[in-house]
């Protein structure tokens, strides 16, 4: 049984139940669920939605590689990653990650690894749509517009989490 439970790019809303079911088995005492969702303000600008596109075959390949790395490093973790493409509204989930492990600490560590590597390596891009009608490609390597404003670092889909893992939403 592969420890990579599920890797997929989808265009419809993400069904988190599918991820949870994919990683579940009776040996697992802890399951984390991370959702990245579209945030209303990025870099000081009011966002109305985000259009996600990807180099799809390579994105799937990198997501699979990351899931495999996490599953091996935190064995016997089971990992599921689903990323959505297309145009998303505020509050919609662009990415979902589920990790199951017999113990909570490795489950959380593996999940953190998966989202950080996904943001670093997976060839997916965001075209932000702003309330004022303009659009711009998000470039996380660029300096924020208002340094020190405390609004974020160029990623509109932030770590707004639900389920077992929780990060503060702005």
């Amino acid at each position, binding site marked *: 049984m592969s420890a990579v439970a599920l890797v997929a790019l989808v265009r419809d809303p993400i069904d988190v139940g599918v991820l949870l079911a994919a990683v579940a088995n009776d040996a697992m005492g802890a399951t984390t669920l991370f959702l990245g969702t579209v945030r209303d303000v990025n870099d000081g600008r009011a966002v109305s939605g985000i259009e996600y596109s990807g180099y799809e075959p390579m994105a799937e390949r990198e997501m699979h590689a990351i899931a495999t790395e996490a599953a091996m490093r935190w064995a016997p973790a089971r990992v599921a990653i689903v*990323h959505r493409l297309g145009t998303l509204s505020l509050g919609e989930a662009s*990415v979902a990650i589920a990790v199951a492990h017999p113990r909570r600490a490795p489950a959380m560590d593996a999940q953190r690894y998966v989202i950080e590597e996904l943001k670093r390596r997976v*060839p997916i891009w965001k075209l932000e749509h702003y309330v004022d009608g303009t659009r711009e*490609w998000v470039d996380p390597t660029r300096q924020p517009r208002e340094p020190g404003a405390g609004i974020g670092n160029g990623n509109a889909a932030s770590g707004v989490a639900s389920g077992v893992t929780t990060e503060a939403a702005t």
Partner: protein
Amino acid sequence: MRIKVLLFASYADAIGSPSVELELPEDATVADLVRQLRSAPGAAHLPARPLVAIDQAYARPEQRVAGATEIAVIPPVAGG
């Protein structure tokens, strides 16, 4: 040799196409390909060392491009 290069997101917008064809010497490297791409119309603002993938794996600047099935120049990624 004639090489087709896939472009995405801001790079495709800048050059006005999702792909370009370049004429390169047989011993060309990724760095050579990037240098030539940056001389294309609209491509001057591309970084000197963008991410490049050969056959869907990230490639080093000194890597040869001959024999590749698919080459892509990849803007800063922003998934999640």
